[in-house]
């Protein structure tokens, strides 16, 4: 799976979790600026586990790894 495909899938999942239009999810926008709180962030982590078979909650992730869709996609691409 390419990084672009991962980004696309992440945008789709985040759009569904936050009830937003996929087109409004920019890959560089910090997640907290999209109104994402602890609960919706955990929903994103669950979505990632179901979609990419990665349990990110158990990994030592830093803010840098997760701050934007772009960073998250890079991190996931590195783990797949």
């Amino acid at each position, binding site marked *: 799976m390419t990084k672009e495909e991962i980004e696309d899938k992440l945008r789709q999942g985040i759009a569904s979790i936050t*009830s937003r239009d996929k087109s409004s999810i920019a890959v560089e926008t910090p997640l907290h600026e999209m109104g994402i*709180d*602890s609960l919706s962030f955990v*929903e994103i982590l669950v979505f990632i586990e179901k979609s990419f078979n990665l349990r990110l*909650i158990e990994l030592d992730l830093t803010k840098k790894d997760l701050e934007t869709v772009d960073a998250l996609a890079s991190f996931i691409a590195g783990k797949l």
Partner: protein
Amino acid sequence: MGFVIPSSKHRRYLSGADWIINALDCMLKTVTCAGNMSQIVFMLDGEIDEPLLRSRLESFIRKFPVVEGRVSRDLNLTPLWKIPGKAVVGVNLDVHRVQAFSSLNDVFSFLENGVNRLFKDENEHLSFHLVQGGGRACFAMTFDHRLLDARGAESFLHLFRQFLTEGDESRIEEGVCLTAPACLSDWGRKFIAGRNLNRKIISLSKPTPDALPVPSGNDRAFRYKVVSFGADETAKIYDNADNSAGFMMEMPYLLAVTVQAVRGLFQRKGMAAPNYVVPVSLDMRGSGDIRQELFFNHVSYLFFKVLAEETVDLKSTINTIKQQMYDQVKSGMPADVAEACLLTRIAPLSLMKKIFRIPFKGRIASFCFSYLGKGPSMASGFMGAEITNIFHMPRVPVPPGLGFFFNYFNGRLTMVVSYIEGLIEDEDIQMLEERMRESL
């Protein structure tokens, strides 16, 4: 897909969450001096024009007859909110002048009185309070949780602010959705959700959680401690949350710190190794237009069980809370709670308040907790004054009669401890504040 009975202009069917809130209201009226209410407080850096506030509030409230509704049942037995054709009662606004207003302490008794006063009848669900003097003011709205949840109350006042500033006030109520289906279909799904919730409750009940003994007497008021952190302190707390719990894990971090502080409190009260069950309310709205879901309750719950051995240090408490949060979200617990609660609507409120006491040997929970993070954008002006802080003062279900509520506004975190009179003493509160400040 079964058939759907929509609500009409004058009746809005209640959800399962609404019915739980109604049951808690009934319970609180039995064991305390008032119902399931809360209060949102704006601290202002200037005084405001009282006659103007009164007249603008009256015009605003008249746009929303739903605020003068009452609970009833339909012929199909579904509970509903009966909405009058127009709002007629008017605005209940108390005004107090104080000579000195240098800190929150100078006006706190007015705020506590406001949130501990029973609404005058079943059609009153809002009251407003203005305390001002010495170039500062405090504006508060006491609200019935049967009408608004915490996020809804913030948004209602946000809409009022828009009403004050926008030229075309005739359209302010546009987009506010006051209909909801009766949800009398898909019974199989509801019963499966009910089974899942029952299993969760059974697993939470062993071992029995600890809670402080509720003092006797059925007319006790709630007391509050408000701790506001400065901008630098707040930034440090969020950094600590990032480092200790992980990115965007503020809620588990704040809950873990609270559990650690409550552990000290329970130990002071003679409980050697307390276990905890904590319900945490969640906002189930999407991030779309808040007007769609302004009124009534759009919440669900996560339940956390923290055993005594998991509270030995902050890190292990954080880890257990994070893991439980993840597992519950993955298994769809918030949606199950919302679905399962729909089944309770057939029960009368007098029966509901007894059902609540069946699990956990009547203790219900060790304490209540919520965290309202960065929410809908609240500009900081209000009738010509700057809003310096916003916080909530909820009345907590009894038992447990103890709650911790965090909210974030304009770069500052505020913690409010709410407790029923006599449950804890001033020294206990001081100890809690010291422990929280040390750990956060």
